[in-house]
C-alpha cells in the first residue's frame, strides 16, 4: 500500500519527486548493543551475532562486539556456552533444546555489562509446502506457501540464501596474465556463481485466517533486467516460527527501516525487544531473541522457464597484437578471441573485463555442491 501510493504520488503528479537527502549529523549518538540470532531447536548450529550501533556518519558498516561471554540458560536448568568465532559471532554446533521448553540468553560483554533476555519458548516450525514464483510486470516475485495443520504456528519469518550462475557475454579463449602476456585458455573464467542473502525482513501471519495457512507470502522480488535469472537461479528459503511478540517487534523494525516514504507513512515508533541490560536498566538493547526449528526448501529457476531477459552492455574492439597496443587496453579490456594473419595472431578481439571474465562481475568459480 505504502509503496503503491508512493509511486502513485510520484507519477500522477509527475512533478512530485524524491531527492537524496544527507543525514544531518546528530550529536547525541549512542552505542547500543545489537543482538541478532535464533536459538536453533533441532538439527543445526546456533549463531548469535553481537554488534554495536554506529554513528550516522561513521564509515564502518558493522562494529562487532567481541570478547563477550554468551550463554543459553534453560528455565528448568542447564546452561550452554556459545563460543566466539569471529566478527561478533558466537556459535554452538548443536544446542540440545527441547520444543516447548523455555530458554534465555545471557551476555556478559567485555566492559562487564550484563544483558539478559526474557525466557522464550522453543517453537516448532512446519515444513514449507512450496516456493512459488510468478512474473509480475516483468519483475520476478518469489513467494512461499506453508501451513500448520495444528494451527499453532501462526507467525512466520523467512530468510533466504540465493545463488545464480552467470556466464560471460563473450566466452574467452584467451587469458591475460599480466603486462602484455596473453595465453590461450579455452573457456577461461566464463562460468561463475554469485551468492546473496536476504536483506529485508520477511514476516507473515495467518492470525486473521481460519486456519494456519500462508499463501503466496512474498519473500523476494527480482527486478527486471537483473542478472540473477540470466542463466539459472536458485533460492534456499529458511522458515522459522515466531511468537506474537517477536512478530510485532519485527514488524515495527520493518516499518521503521524499510518504509518507502509514502504520504501515509506511519511515524517511526520506538519499541523495545526482549533483551535488557541488567547492569543499566535505562540502556536499550536492539534485537529480539527467538527459539525455533528451521524448515528449508530450495528451488531452481532457469532463464528459459522465467522467460527472463538479461543483457550485458558490451563492445568488442580489435587490438593489434603489439605490446604497445595491448598495454593500452588491458586490464580494462580483456582478450577473448583473435584473428590470425600470415604471421600468427594479428589482432586480439577484446571487450570490457566484465564481459569476458565473470570474476570481474564478482562471480566465484566454484560450482556449489547443489548445482
Amino acid at each position: 500500500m505504502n509503496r503503491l501510493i508512493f509511486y502513485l504520488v510520484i507519477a500522477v503528479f509527475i512533478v512530485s519527486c524524491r531527492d537524496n537527502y544527507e543525514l544531518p549529523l546528530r550529536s547525541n549518538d549512542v552505542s547500543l548493543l545489537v543482538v541478532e540470532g535464533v536459538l536453533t531447536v533441532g538439527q543445526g548450529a546456533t549463531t548469535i551475532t553481537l554488534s554495536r550501533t554506529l554513528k550516522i556518519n561513521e564509515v564502518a558498516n558493522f562494529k562487532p562486539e567481541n570478547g563477550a561471554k554468551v550463554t543459553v540458560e534453560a528455565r528448568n536448568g542447564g546452561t550452554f556456552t556459545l563460543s566466539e568465532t569471529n566478527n561478533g559471532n558466537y556459535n554452538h554446533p548443536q544446542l540440545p533444546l527441547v520444543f516447548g521448553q523455555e530458554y534465555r540468553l545471557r551476555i556478559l560483554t567485555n566492559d562487564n555489562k550484563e544483558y539478559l533476555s526474557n525466557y522464550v519458548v522453543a517453537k516448532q516450525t512446519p515444513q514449507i509446502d512450496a516456493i512459488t514464483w510468478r512474473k509480475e510486470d516483468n519483475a520476478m516475485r518469489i513467494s512461499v506457501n506453508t501451513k500448520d495443520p495444528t494451527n499453532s504456528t501462526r507467525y512466520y519469518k523467512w530468510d533466504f540464501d540465493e545463488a545464480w550462475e552467470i556466464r560471460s557475454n563473450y566466452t574467452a579463449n584467451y587469458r591475460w596474465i599480466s603486462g602484455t602476456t596473453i595465453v590461450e585458455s579455452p573457456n577461461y573464467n566464463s562460468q561463475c556463481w554469485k551468492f546473496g542473502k536476504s536483506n529485508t525482513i520477511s514476516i507473515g501471519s495467518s492470525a486473521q485466517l481460519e486456519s494456519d495457512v500462508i499463501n503466496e507470502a512474498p519473500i523476494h522480488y527480482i527486478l527486471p533486467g537483473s542478472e540473477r535469472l540470466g542463466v539459472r537461479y536458485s533460492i534456499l528459503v529458511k522458515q522459522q516460527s515466531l511468537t506474537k511478540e517477536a512478530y510485532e517487534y519485527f514488524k515495527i523494525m520493518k516499518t521503521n527501516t524499510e518504509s518507502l516514504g509514502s504520504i501515509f507513512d506511519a511515524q517511526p515508533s520506538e519499541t523495545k525487544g526482549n533483551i535488557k541490560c541488567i547492569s543499566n536498566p535505562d540502556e536499550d538493547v536492539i534485537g529480539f531473541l527467538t527459539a525455533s526449528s528451521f524448515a528449508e526448501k530450495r528451488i531452481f529457476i532457469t532463464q528459459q522457464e522465467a522467460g527472463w531477459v538479461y543483457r550485458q552492455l558490451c563492445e568488442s574492439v580489435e587490438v593489434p597484437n603489439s605490446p604497445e597496443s595491448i598495454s593500452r587496453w588491458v586490464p580494462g579490456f580483456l582478450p577473448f578471441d583473435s584473428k590470425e594473419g600470415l604471421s600468427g595472431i594479428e589482432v586480439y578481439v577484446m571487450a570490457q573485463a566484465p564481459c569476458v571474465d565473470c570474476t570481474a562481475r564478482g562471480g566465484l568459480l566454484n560450482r556449489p555442491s547443489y548445482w
Partner: protein
Amino acid sequence: MKKLLLLLAFVVGLTTVAKTQNAVLISGKFEKITPEIFFKQIEEKTPYYFYYDVKHLDSITINIDVQNQSLQDVLKQAFQNTDIHFAVDVQNRVFITKKIPLIASLPANFFKPGTTQQREDYTHGLTVNTGINNVRKAVLADNKLYEVGNKTNTIKQGNAVVNGYVRNSKSGEPIFNASIYVDSLNRSVISNQDGYFTITLPAGAHKLNAQSIGMEDAQFNVVVYGNGTLNFEMKEHVRLLKEVVVSAQKIANVNRVQLGVERLSIESIKKVPTAFGEVDILRAVLTLPGVKTVGEASTGLNVRGGSSDQNLVLMNGATIYNPSHFFGMFSAFNPEIVKDVELYKSSIPAKFGGRLSSVLDIGLREGNKKEITGSAGIGLLTSRLNIEGPLVKDKTSFILGGRTTYANWLLKMLPSPYENSKASFYDANLSVNHNIGKKDDLYFTGYISRDRFNLASDTTYGYSNLNFNLRWKHQFNNKLIANFLVGSDRYEYDVTSEQNKINAYKLKFDINQLNLKSDFSYVANSNHTFEFGVNAIRYQLHPGSFHPNGKESLVEPNVVAKEQALESGVYFADRYTISSKLSVNGGIRYSMFNYLGGGDVNIYTPGLPKDESTVIETKTYDKGRVINTYHGPEYRFSARYVLTTSSSIKAGFNSQRQYIHMLSNTTAIAPTDIWKLSDPNIRPQQGAQLSIGYYKNLKANTIETSVEVYYKKIKDYLDYKPGALLVLNHNIETDVMNTKGKAYGAELMVKKTSGKLNGWISYTYSRILLQMDDPTVSLPVNDGDWYPANYDKPHDVTAIGNFKVNHRFSLSLNMTYSTGRPITLPIGRFYYAGSQRVLYADRNSYRIPDYFRADFAMNIDGNYKVKQRTHNSWTIGVYNLTGRRNPFSVYYTSENGQVNGYKLSIFGSAIPFVNFNIRF
C-alpha cells in the same frame, strides 16, 4: 421608471387642459387588500387606468369603505397617512407616486403669475424631500420609505425591535453576514445564515445601512413606529469590483464580540490559486492565520495547535467526517454550491459542541427562487455541473450540483506496474428550501461523496460520506425565532483485496449519527439577545469488520463489536450590550455523553498499564443500557470594548469537550483512520483557550489590522502506543494513551479589503507541544518530556494579493512561508537481518527544511452584459511558481543493505493549470 413617469407626467400635464373629473363615482368595501388589487378593482369598474410602481406600495394595505365618492376622495382615504401621492389627467390616467407629488394637469391659474396653487387639492401627507438622491447613488437603494410597526400619526417614544430578512434581489437567496447598521447610533448587527437580523432602534426616522460582500452597499430610509418586520433586498454587484478577498464585513471585525472568527466568501475562495486549478475550500481555509496542515497532500486542518480530528466540519448542519477526495489531495466540497465558509478558531458559539479546536461551518447556497440557472466547469481533473431554480416561484427552490473526476487518464500515464491503477470520486449536493408562509421555512440538505481507488489491482480502497437533514425554521414572533433540525450523517470506508484468493478480504468501517437540534434565538431588548437550545447526537459506530472475500478465502470473520452512545448538550448564551462600547457574549453549554450497551467492557487494574494481563473482569451490558456517563460544563465567554469607532479590544475564554476521537498512526490523515467513541476506558478530551485581541481599521475601514494572542491547554488527547494496532483491535484502550498538550501563539494580520489591489498579509507565531503524562504507560514518547506535534510550525507568513487590472481581468498572487514541520530523525545505525538499518529516537526532534511557495493565477472573464445567455470565465495559473521542492517528508530506508535518505516533495516543480467555467 420614476424619471420616466415624471417626464411623462409633465408632458401630459403640459398638453392637457384641466377639467373636473367628477363624472365617475365609486362605491365599495375594500378590506385589507393590496393597492394593486385595489387598483385592479377600480379599473374594472371605471375608465380609470393606474400607473404605479409596485415597490412603492408594498408596505401599504387598503382598508376603506366608500359610497358614491369621487376617485380623488377614494384615493385620499386610501392613502391617508402615507407618503403616496396621486394625480389624475384628463385621459383618466392615474399616476401614483411616492413622496413626490405629481401635477397631472396644469393648474387653472397656471398662466396667472402671482397666485399659488393649493397643492392640497391633489396631494396630501408628509412633507417630502424633493428629488432623488443622485449624489449617493450607490448608497440609497431606493426611494422607498420603509415603515416598521403599526403606523401611528405620531411617533411614540422608546425603542423598538426591528427584524427581518435580507435577500438578494436577483435570486431571492438570503444574504448571510450582511452588516446592518445605523451610523448615527453606532449600532450594528449582522444577518445570520438565513439572512435574518434583529436590531433595536429608537422610534423615529433612521438611515439604515447595509453592507455585504458582493452586494452593492445600500441605504434605506426607515421610520420605526414600533416593533415590526423589515425585509429588504440588496442588489448584486453586476461586477464585483470592490471585492474583499477574505472578508469579515467591513467593520464587523472591530464590532463583533467574538474573537478568532474568519470568514471566506466563495468569491474569494475562487481566487486562491490551487494545484491543478481546482477551487478548493479547505486549501483556501489553510491560508488563514492559525490554520496549518502537515503537508500538501493532506487536507487535515490543524487549528491553533489542535489535531485534525478536533475540527467540527459542518455543511449546512451536517457533520462531514472525511472532507477530502483523492486521498487528501482535494477537498470534498463543490465550490459551485458553497456560499461561504466560517471558521471559529477561538470563540466557538455555545450552540456548537463536540470538538476541541474549531468549527468549520460551510454554508450552502439556496437555489435561485426566480429563474432556472446553472453553471458548468471543466478543469484538468474534475468537471462539475450545477442547476438551480424555483420549483414554485418565490416559494420553493432547489439547487443540485455534482462533480466527478476523470483522473484515470493521468493514472494511465504511470509507469508499469501502476498503469492499471484507478482512482475515481464524485460528490453530489441537493438542497431544497421551501417557504411555507411568512413565519416558516423548510430546508432540506442532502450530500453524498464517494471515493474509490485501486492501485495496480491489489487492494481497492473506498470511502464515502452520506448526509441529509431537514431544518424547519419558525418565527414565533419578531423576538423569538427557532430552528429545528433532524439529520443523519454517515461515513464509511472499505478495503477489499481480491488477488490472493486465500487471503482475499473485505474490511469495513462506518460511523452513523442521528442528529436532533433545536436552537432558539430571542431578542429580549436592545441589550440582551439570548440563544439557547438542546442538541442530541445518537452515535452508532462499527469499528471494523473483516470478512472473507470469495469462496476460496480462508479469512476468519472478525467483527469488532459496535459502539453506541448518546451525546447531548443544552446551552444558553446571552449577547449583552452593556454600553455602546462594551459588549459581552457569555454562554454555557452543558454536555453529557452516555456510552450505551450492549457490549463487553474490560475493567483494568487501576494504576497499571492497560493490557491483557491487567484485566480484572469483563462486564457485559445489555442492549440500550447506559454503561457509563461523562458530563461537564463548557464555558464560552467573550467581551469586546470599542476604543474608537474603528478600533476595539476583545478577550475570550472557551472550553470544550470532545467525546469522539480519531486514531491515526500516519502523518497525514489517511482514508483508513478510525474513529473511536469515549468509553469507560477512554476519557473525553478537554480543551480550554484564552485569547486576547486588538483590532483597528484604517482608511475608512478599507484596511483592517488585528493582533490576537492565545494560550490553549488540551487534556486527554489520545495518542497511540508505538506499534499500536488500530484497525480491528478489540481492546483498543490497550494500545492508546493519554497525552496532554499546550499551544500558544500570536496572529498578526493586515488586510486591505477594497480597491484595485486587495488582499492580506498575515504572520503567525504558534507552538504546539505534547507530553505523554499517562502514569500507567511504561514507554512514554520521549521519556515523558514535552515534544512538538507533527504540525508544529512556529513561523508562518502568508501574503494573498489580488490585483484588478480591469473589470474582466485580474491577477492573484499567493506567497506562503513556514518553518518546516518536525520529524523524527535517526540517531544511529545498526546492522540487522542482512542490512544497515536506522535507529530512531526522540520523536519530532528535528525539522524538515522550511517551506516556501508562490502561486499565481489570472482570472479572465467574458463580457458582463447582464442579459446574455451564458457567462464564461477562465482561470489560468501556475502553482508553485518558483518550482521549489518543498519537502513533505524526509525519510530513511534500507535498500540493498544500505541506508539511504530521501526527501519527498509532493509538488516538485511549477504546475500550470487552466480551468473553464460557464454560467447559464
